[in-house]
């Protein structure tokens, strides 16, 4: 590549990067300033006297610590559940014979694109009947059990596991569950961690379910805590953006540590699903 081409390429890449990173920079910058500085004109491009006071306030006064724990708990349990549901079903669809297999798998595929807004109304009535409104259960149970793309992903992976691996275990007298648990789970570690990451992300960022199911503040997730904050303090941008930073930091940390799995999760669930 010629030098001038390289310069053009890097200029473009940097310009796009600015558009992508700028909002995060402002989020952070404002979250470190007192309200007075936020409303200063002209606006300050960096915090002149950075302070952690906003963070202290939202954690101490406004329950953000609790919201964070709630989100972590819900997203972890839901994602782990989805791993189990999808891997064991994927195993059966890939390696076992049973009546109605094609039909049931077809039904799973057919519901991949159904938007949550379509099923949420009957689901809400069902949760009401079960007495689960204002508990964590509506955020956990459906995600735990539904994994359309996950089942698809795990089935594709398990179909390609060599037969010899399975046969060796059969000779040793292992039951199908043992074969699934002791052989298939370990060989699919990469797919499973990709699936976990994607599922965790979706549940961590989920909004509609917490919004309609949760009433008591102490159960709020971070997304819901943040939006209720907007309603109460719509002009307190320093608090709002500090809250946004709190919701972003944990998921960014996971993302930076596990970038490869993120990318894999998207290409394998996205491209094929």
């Amino acid at each position: 590549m010629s030098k001038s081409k390289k310069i053009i390429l890097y200029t473009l890449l940097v310009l796009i990067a600015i558009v992508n990173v700028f909002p995060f920079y402002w989020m952070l910058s404002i979250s470190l300033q007192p309200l007075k500085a936020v409303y200063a004109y002209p606006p300050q491009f960096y915090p002149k006297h950075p302070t952690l006071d906003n963070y202290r306030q939202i954690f101490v006064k406004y329950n953000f610590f609790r919201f964070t724990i709630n989100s972590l708990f819900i997203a972890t349990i839901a994602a782990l559940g989805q791993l189990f549901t999808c891997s064991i079903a994927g195993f059966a669809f890939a390696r076992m014979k049973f009546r109605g297999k094609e039909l049931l798998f077809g039904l799973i595929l057919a519901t991949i694109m159904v938007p949550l807004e379509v099923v949420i109304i009957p689901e809400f009535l069902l949760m009401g009947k079960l007495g689960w409104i204002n508990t964590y259960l509506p955020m956990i149970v459906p995600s735990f059990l539904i994994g359309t793309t996950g089942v698809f992903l795990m089935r594709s992976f398990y179909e390609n596991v060599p037969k010899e691996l399975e046969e060796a275990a059969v000779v040793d007298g292992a039951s199908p569950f043992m074969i699934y648990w002791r052989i298939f789970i370990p060989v699919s570690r990469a797919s499973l961690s990709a699936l976990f990451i994607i599922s965790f992300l979706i549940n961590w960022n989920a909004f509609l379910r917490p919004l309609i199911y949760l009433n008591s503040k102490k159960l709020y997730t971070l997304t819901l805590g943040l939006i209720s904050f907007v309603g109460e303090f719509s002009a307190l941008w320093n608090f709002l953006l500090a809250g946004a930073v709190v919701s972003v930091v944990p998921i960014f940390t996971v993302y930076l540590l596990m970038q490869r799995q993120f990318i894999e999760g998207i290409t394998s669930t996205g491209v094929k699903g």
Partner: protein
Amino acid sequence: MRYKWYLPYLFILLAMVGLFVFRLGPLFFAGGMSFTDWSMFGSPGWVGLENYIEFVKDPTFWKIVWHTISFSLIFVPIILFGSLILAVLLNQGIPGTTTFRAMYFAPVVTSTVAVGIVWRWIFGADVGMLNFLLRTLGIESPPSWLSDRQFSLVVVALVFAWKRLGYYMIIYLAGLQDIPRTMYEAARIDGAGALAIFRKITLPLITPTMFFVMIMALVDSFKNFDIVYTMTRGGPGTASTTLAYYIYQHAFELFQMGQAASLSMFLLVIVGGISVLNFVYKSRWVNTQG
């Protein structure tokens, strides 16, 4: 492997509960509800097609359908071409690619609520960054964006596209990496320029991915509840109300569950139609390679 006939059913049991109780069941139940006047209070009665007829006669409904379509018309082309450009730029194999990729992907992992809040600030009428820049450039009275009927829907769709670009960029990158390096090398030896290489090699071979991205982005564009709720709550008035938000309003603010269910059937038909289209035309439109 030897097992009793019922064992596979035990293995898929959890997934089947998910499928029937939380997917198919609600789908059919919502279909049934759409023919009733179900509300949160009182007992539901059968009203036949009345909900549908009411909506079809209601000009507000058509306005909302138009908003929904406009949202897609803004969102899908930006995704389709924008994320392809990002992917092609990142696919040149120059140093620093992983860093840029990480930055471009950052909005994807951020919650829609956090994205919505920070962009609300940027687009703020008085203290917002954008209007400060516009005033500095000499524009005396810049629009108030999110509280302006003309702009609110456009801004929301643009912000949503900003959030989703990185996701489709990853899908394009996977597609680009499937194109054999040798083809590029051969073209370069023959003296083809960058633009010719893009038009004659990249573009034809990326068409299957483009088609896939278009379908995915189209479906994605209807799932706009989170971003509409956080940025405008459908306002001002109904200026940025889309079908997804309208369903929520009817169900959980007005508690008209029956009407909300019939609205959700419109959404289902649209998304279902796109999926069928995808299924039928995939092989015909797309130049598949091996």
